[in-house]
Every structure is written in C-alpha cells, then in structure tokens.
C-alpha cells in the first residue's frame, strides 16, 4: 500500500491551504450565493426570494451605470500597463546608478496605505487649492473640479489607480526582463539590430507570459476597486453617478441602505463578471503569449 501512503502525504501537505481556501473563500462564496437569493433583515433573519434580487438589478439603471464605470476604470488602468513595462525596462538598463533608490521610489505607492494615497491625491486634485490646478493655472488653463465633476472623476481616480499599480507591475516585469537570456541580445547585436528593434523583437515577445499575468491580475484588481472611490468621492458628491463602481454600489446597498440580500446579488454579479472576463483572457492568451 505504498501509493496510498504517498497520497495521504500529498493531501496532508496541501491540507492547510485547502482548509484555508474552504473556510475563507468557498464557504463565504456559498453563503453569498445563498444570501443573494434572500431578503435579509438588518440583524439576521432571512426570507427566501429566489431570483428577485437579480431581476431587480437587471432593471436598475444604477447597476448599469456602475458596471459601465467599473469597465471604463479597468480599461483605463489596463492602458497604464505599458507604462510599467517602460519603467521596468528603464530600471533594467545595465549599470544604472542609484537603481535601488528608483526601485524604492516606484514601489512606495504599493506599500502605502490606500487611505493615505486617496487623501493625498484628493488634495492634489482639489479644484480650488490643489497643486494640479495650480500648475495648470500657471500656463493659463482653468482646471476643472476633478473629483466633483462627473465627467472627470473616474479619469482622475484611474490616474491614481495607474500610479499606485506601476510599482508592483514594474517589479513583476523586471523579474520577467531578467529572465530573458542575454544570448538573444548578443545574437541580435551581431545581426546589427538596434536597441529599439531589440526591444520590440526580443524583449516584448519574451515578456508576454509576464504581461499576461500582469494584465489578468490588474484587471481583477481594477474590477474590484473600492477604496480609492470611497476615499475620494463622497456619497453626496455630484460626481458619484459618474464614478460609482460595482463594489461601491455593493457598499452603498449593503451598508448604507441595509439591503444585504441585494448587495450579495451585486457581489455575485461581480464574481461572474470577473470569472467570464478572466476566462476570455485565458482563451485569448494562446494567440499572443509566447512561452520560450
């Protein structure tokens, strides 16, 4: 019974992880699913309502608005990914002086509390006293109320989102870059390829596995954005409609309006959305990701 013992060992070794997953992920997911089919009392007590919550949501303009805002935000943040590649490539230049200082600087936003990030940027974006409008003012541009205007708010928040993700993504890209064998570049140099050509023909293609990973992670994070919006946009702000994301709507429904069942349904919709978009990305990766 040698093999059975081996199996047992295997299960034993994955047990902590599996247990953690079951307790902290699977069970809450199951509960959320159940909750989404109920109308819940504020202090417990549920009545089964079937799919009524979802039916409510599918006819709710706010839900579609939040979906639109979330997708727009995700696209904007994804569009910031190339920036991380550029930063990583610059940090990877051989013999760069003060490399660790640059790395620290770019990574700082990642380890900074979102609350601090949100508040600091709110000050920068302030329409009357903010640094951004002050700078714009010196060149004669009358800056808008970035966070008070529904047409600008989501873009302003996306800027912060991109800014805070550059460091994390750049570190990943840096690891990817350093994993590319040097002999490709040596061979290319002998063939007379310039730096730019090397970048586009060697670096980018060999970086695609990292890019894929970064894109998937960034998208999942972006779809769940809440803290920045919560910190920068007040519930009474005129910009709320233009910047409310799915998780913000979830918060508002569940914790401001005390409609727990409906909020759970929103969470389920977000879960499905993330699953579908991630599945699509995994399908598409065959077309553009090159593994060595």
């Amino acid at each position, binding site marked *: 019974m040698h093999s059975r013992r081996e199996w047992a060992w295997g299960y034993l070794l994955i047990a902590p992880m599996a247990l953690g997953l079951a307790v902290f992920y699977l069970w809450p997911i199951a509960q959320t699913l159940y909750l989404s089919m109920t109308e819940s*009392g*504020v*202090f*417990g007590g549920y009545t089964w309502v079937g799919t009524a919550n979802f039916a409510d949501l599918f006819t709710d303009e706010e839900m579609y608005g939040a979906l639109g805002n979330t997708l727009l935000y995700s696209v904007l943040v994804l569009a910031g990914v190339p920036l991380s590649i550029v930063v990583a490539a610059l940090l990877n230049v051989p013999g760069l002086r003060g490399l660790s200082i640059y790395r620290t600087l770019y990574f700082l936003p990642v380890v900074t509390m979102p609350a601090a990030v949100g508040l600091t940027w*709110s000050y920068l*974006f*302030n*329409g*009357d*006293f*903010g640094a951004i409008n002050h700078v714009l003012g010196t060149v004669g541009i009358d800056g*808008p*109320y970035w*966070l*008070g*205007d*529904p047409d600008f708010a989501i873009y302003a928040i996306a800027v912060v989102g991109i800014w805070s993700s550059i460091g994390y993504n750049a570190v990943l890209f840096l690891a990817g870059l350093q994993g590319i064998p040097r002999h490709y570049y040596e061979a290319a140099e002998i063939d007379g390829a310039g730096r730019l050509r090397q970048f586009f023909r060697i670096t980018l293609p060999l970086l695609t596995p990292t890019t894929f990973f970064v894109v998937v992670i960034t998208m999942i994070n972006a779809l769940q954005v809440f803290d920045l919006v919560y910190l920068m*946009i*007040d*519930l*009474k*702000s*005129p*910009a*709320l*409609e233009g910047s409310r994301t799915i998780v913000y709507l979830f918060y*508002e429904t569940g*914790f*401001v*309006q*005390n*409609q727990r069942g409906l909020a759970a349904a929103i969470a389920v919709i977000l879960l499905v959305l993330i699953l579908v978009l991630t599945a699509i990305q995994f399908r598409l990766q065959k077309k553009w990701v090159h593994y060595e």
Partner: protein
Amino acid sequence: MRFRLPLACLAGLTVMAAGCGSSSQPEASGKATISYAIWDKNDQASAEKIISAFQQANPDVTVKLEITPWDQYWTKLQTAASGGAAPDVFWMNSLNVRMYAKGGIITPIEESKAQGLPPAVVDGYRYDGKLYGLPHNVSIPALWYDKKLFDAAGVAYPTADWTWDDVKAAAKKLTDPSKKQFGILAHMWDQGAFYPTMLQAGGHVLSQDGKKSGFDDPASIQGLEYWTGMIKDKVGPVAEVYADTDPITLFQSGKYGMLYGGVWFAPTFWANPEIRERIDVAPLPAGPGKEAVILLGLANAVSAKSEHPKESAAFAEFVTSEQAQKILSDTGGGSLSLRDGTQEGWFKAFPSFHLKETYNASMPYGVPYPVSLNTAQWQDVQNKLLAEAWAGKRPVADVAKEIATQMNEILAKE
C-alpha cells in the same frame, strides 16, 4: 465583600442629594463591568469625566469606554448586535433607533427618565409608543457669518429677526467675483440647511404618520430652490466646490460671507484665534411659511442582551442627569448639553460667539429630525437625486417629485 453594600448605598445617597434625582440605583450585586461605545473623539474627555463621576457613585460598577470612528461605528455595531454582542450602553441617533428597536437589539426605557428634556429631541427616540434612548445633547443648526466681510461690504450683521430675503440681499452684497468671494455657502446638507428651509417654506419632509414623502409638496420644493437659487444667482459657489473641500474649511478661508452650520462647529472655529475674531453666529433666518429649526440629539441606548441591565440602565440615565449634563457643558467639547439650565459652561467656553442667544431663539421652534424605520435608505435616494439638482443638471421640481415617488415606495415597504 459585605462591607461594599453600605458604601454603595451611601454613595448613592450622596448623588441623590446632589440633585441627580435618580431612584434606580443599581443593586450592589457584586462587581459589574459594562461597556460604553461612542464615536466622537471630541467627546472623549467629557465621557471620561462622566464615567468617573458615575463610578464614584457606584463603586462596584466599572464602565469601559470604547471609541469607534463614525465611519466604522454602525457597521461594527450591526455586526456585534447580530451576534448578540452589542456593547451594554451605546450612542444612538434618531436615524437608526427604530431599526434597532424593531430588531430587539435595544431595550425600552421608562418614560419618566426623559422628564424635563425637550420633546423635539426626545420624540426622535420613540418607536411604537415606547422610548428607546435617552438623549444627552442637542445639535442646533445656526447661521455663521464672517464679520470682516460684512463690515467690508457695509452690511448689518444677521439678527434673530432675519428672513430669507435678508439672507439673499446680504449674499448679493457680499459677493465679489473679482476676489472669488461669495456671499453664502450653498452646500447640500439636510439637518441644518435644506430640511429647515423646506419646513420654513411651509412644506414637510415626511408626513406626520411617517408614511408619505413630502418632497413633492410645492412648499418643500420652494425650500429646496432657496439653495439651488443661491448657486444659480452665483452668490454661492457651484456644487463641485463642496465635493472637494469641506464647507467648514471653506468658510474659514475668509472668502465666504455666510454658512448654515451647527452650533457644534464652535470648538472648531474657536481653536483658531484668527477665525475666532472674525466670525459670529445667529439663529436660522425665518422662511416665508414659518420658523423652524431641526433639532437632533444623540442618545444612549441600552442593549437588550446586556448581562447587567440594571447597571447599564442606571449609567444611561446618569449620562442624561443634571450632574453629567453639567460636566458635559463645562468640558467645553463638541456637545451642547440638553437639559435646560446646564449649558452655561459651554456658552462660556466660547464667550464672543452669540451661542446663548442662538440657543434661546432656536429652541422654541425646534422640530424633530424626520425619520422612519429605515431612514438611511430613502436618504440615500434623496442625496443622490438632489446632487443632480444642486449640480444644475435637472430642475429641482423634477428631482423632488422623483424623490417623492421612490421614497413612497420605500416607505410603503416598511
């Protein structure tokens, strides 16, 4: 510990003699520790003093103060309450009290304990004919104004006789676009700003029985238009401004003539000597319909699941007692005490502000804050839709009618 019993009695007697007038001293049934949850750090000093006074009178009871910031307070409390682990005594507001009373989280309090407190505040804590919280402070909205700007424009300071027209006229004179200076801040705020004007125009927010919205009442709409009109006439800055900077901060920049604010802003303004000198406060101006000031008070509620119900009730009662109310006032924190005659200390803490006059002129017109079972739900709708009117995207009347429709749906489900 047998010798503790007479001591506690003795201490209890002293309190009674001191005018506390409490008849329900906790039975000395051994040591008890009760928890007391509040959200405002500004009230920490007074709360600690009140606790120590209570403990002196009740040596067997220990009160543990827990401060949770407002942003997490209700979420934390709801979670704890759902699990049957709510604090023994905790701060409650009239927005939430019905929900907690209906959910059986808090326990009713004898009507007699609230004697001598203003009905406009106490009534906010009634549900189903019973009282569920003992209010201990009162927040009165008032008109703050910048004397320096008034002097410069040659406008007389606001008085208790001011009406909407006086405000509008003054706002116009105080506005100076070339200096980016505005007559008034027209931020979207319920208790101190648009609820009072809705009432002052003769409208209402919620019907008497709490079943119908009053937003579609033409007078209510007029009350809302008072504010959007200020923005439209450019005597108040556009709605986006308030989203960026807190009106309290804006007002202190010295570029705004008037601010509908609370008397509880006093400690904030007083903290800055330069601001302290240039501003003062007056009662809310009267509208075309009537005078009305929305009063709101915080209360202490007692958990229905408390292991020490007697001690908890006694403590909640003590916080509202004259002795504790005096401590609250004399500490000069953020709270104005509720019991008539105990406020002197608080007024004296900010001598140049006309807070006493404002208090005296406002209390007779006190109206309870409008609440139903799940107030937060329709207020969320109200805020979202009004934001569109404030931003000038939709006419106030349209928005008000839509609020009424949605609000009535929510109220019907309660």
